[in-house]
């Protein structure tokens, strides 16, 4: 369907009016970040990819698990509905991956409380960034998996909904059906591949290369920071700690497998004491270990390449594994 006007902004206004917590790209200086906004003006869609991923909406960087005094005093759960507006295909796919992690097998109640009330409005990509490689991972950047998908093609705003929640949301909008030409345009748009980098994943090779000196070489300049993991839309590691001795809160925060202390055991043993072990672990986590969940846990957004202060490139590292 076609919407005349700025659909995303109007959608935000409606969502806010409906009592949603809305996460959308918002401009900070020269770049965009996903964050919770309180008015449509705060959102800005003149972007390709925000710095951080949309996972903040369902898996916030810190969240209170319990409030305690002498005993547990409160278990805060998300009560409001949540909407992510302006998510790209990569981030949208990542949320599906996080769902597998948090909701299959052990169900994370905190994640669930948000996920159940989530509405995603995705936006199709018109351009790729220098380090985008989602297509080689089977993601169509022009056809994101979301409740509502918005494609802006040649000045026309196409809006579609594949899910019930998406469809019911769209009922409040003045949309018209596409004409034949427009359907054709959209179809062509969706089938046209963007020019981007490609990753070649050879799982068998990965399996064999676990002990390869290659990883040390890749990791030589790794700084053990958390940029790759914190920007990654599919990284889900977290840490839990208590703030306050006599009364306080138990908090869950993101953690990064790249931090040397991530795996430090209280016996003082650290199974991944070396940075190459940690980096290798991350790569395997993306392309090998997580296969038991049925997917690669990489969506090809390229953030970890763009922002790695050491210039480590997951595409090269995985493609050239020996």
């Amino acid at each position: 369907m076609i919407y005349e006007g700025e659909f995303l902004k109007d959608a935000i206004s409606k969502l806010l009016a409906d009592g949603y917590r809305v996460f959308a790209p918002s401009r900070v200086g020269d770049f965009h970040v996903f964050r919770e906004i309180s008015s449509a003006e705060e959102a800005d869609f003149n972007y390709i990819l925000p710095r951080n991923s949309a996972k903040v909406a369902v898996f916030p960087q810190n969240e209170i698990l319990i409030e305690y005094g002498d005993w547990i005093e409160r278990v805060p759960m998300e009560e409001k509905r949540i909407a992510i507006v302006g998510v790209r295909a990569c981030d949208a796919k990542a949320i599906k991956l996080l769902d597998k992690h948090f909701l299959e097998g052990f169900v994370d109640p905190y994640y669930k409380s948000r996920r159940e009330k989530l509405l995603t409005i995705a936006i199709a990509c018109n351009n790729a960034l220098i380090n985008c490689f989602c297509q080689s991972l089977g993601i169509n950047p022009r056809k994101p998996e979301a409740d509502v998908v918005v494609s802006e093609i040649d000045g026309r705003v196409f809006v579609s909904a594949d899910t019930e929640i998406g469809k019911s949301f769209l009922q409040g909008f003045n949309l018209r059906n596409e004409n034949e030409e427009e359907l054709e345009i959209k179809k062509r748009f969706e089938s046209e591949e963007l020019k981007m980098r490609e990753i070649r994943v050879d799982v068998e090779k990965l399996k064999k290369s676990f002990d390869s000196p290659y990883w040390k070489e890749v990791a030589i300049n790794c700084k053990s920071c958390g940029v790759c993991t914190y920007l990654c839309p599919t990284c889900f590691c977290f840490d839990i700690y208590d703030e306050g001795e006599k009364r306080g809160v138990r908090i869950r925060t993101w953690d990064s497998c790249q931090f040397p202390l991530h795996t430090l055991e209280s016996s003082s043993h650290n199974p991944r004491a070396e940075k190459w072990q940690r980096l290798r672990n991350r790569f395997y986590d993306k392309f090998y270990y997580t296969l038991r969940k049925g997917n690669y846990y990489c969506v090809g957004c390229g953030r970890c390449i763009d922002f790695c202060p050491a210039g480590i490139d997951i595409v090269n590292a995985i493609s050239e594994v020996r």
Partner: protein
Amino acid sequence: MKIVTFACNWCSYAGADLAGVSRLKYPEDVRIVRVMCSGMVNPAWILRAFRQGADGVVITGCHPGDCHYMVGNYYAKKRYLLLKELMKFVGFEDERLKLLWASASEGKKFAEEMDSFKKLIEQLGEQKQLRWTP
């Protein structure tokens, strides 16, 4: 109000003791942590104190030249200045951080300074800038 006072064992802690011996009154908000020397006070403790909700932090030590360890208080002052300047730069209410020289015989000064510091902090109100909140 909560005021954390780091007091060096040799001068200021003894000065605080003297204030007690002389029955000089100062606000209950002042809570003293004994350290061996003002030069031992780690800026991290100060930041931590503010994070945990201190409304003011006082580093007390021997007068310049009187340090039991010769120079500890000079180092204390150096670190204090650095932290204070930095906090001022980011717009923190740096008056909340105070350095006080108080000798073992200055019980009166100790009590008076604590009193006036408390009054200053009261004017500023609760410290919210660095206080941790979930």
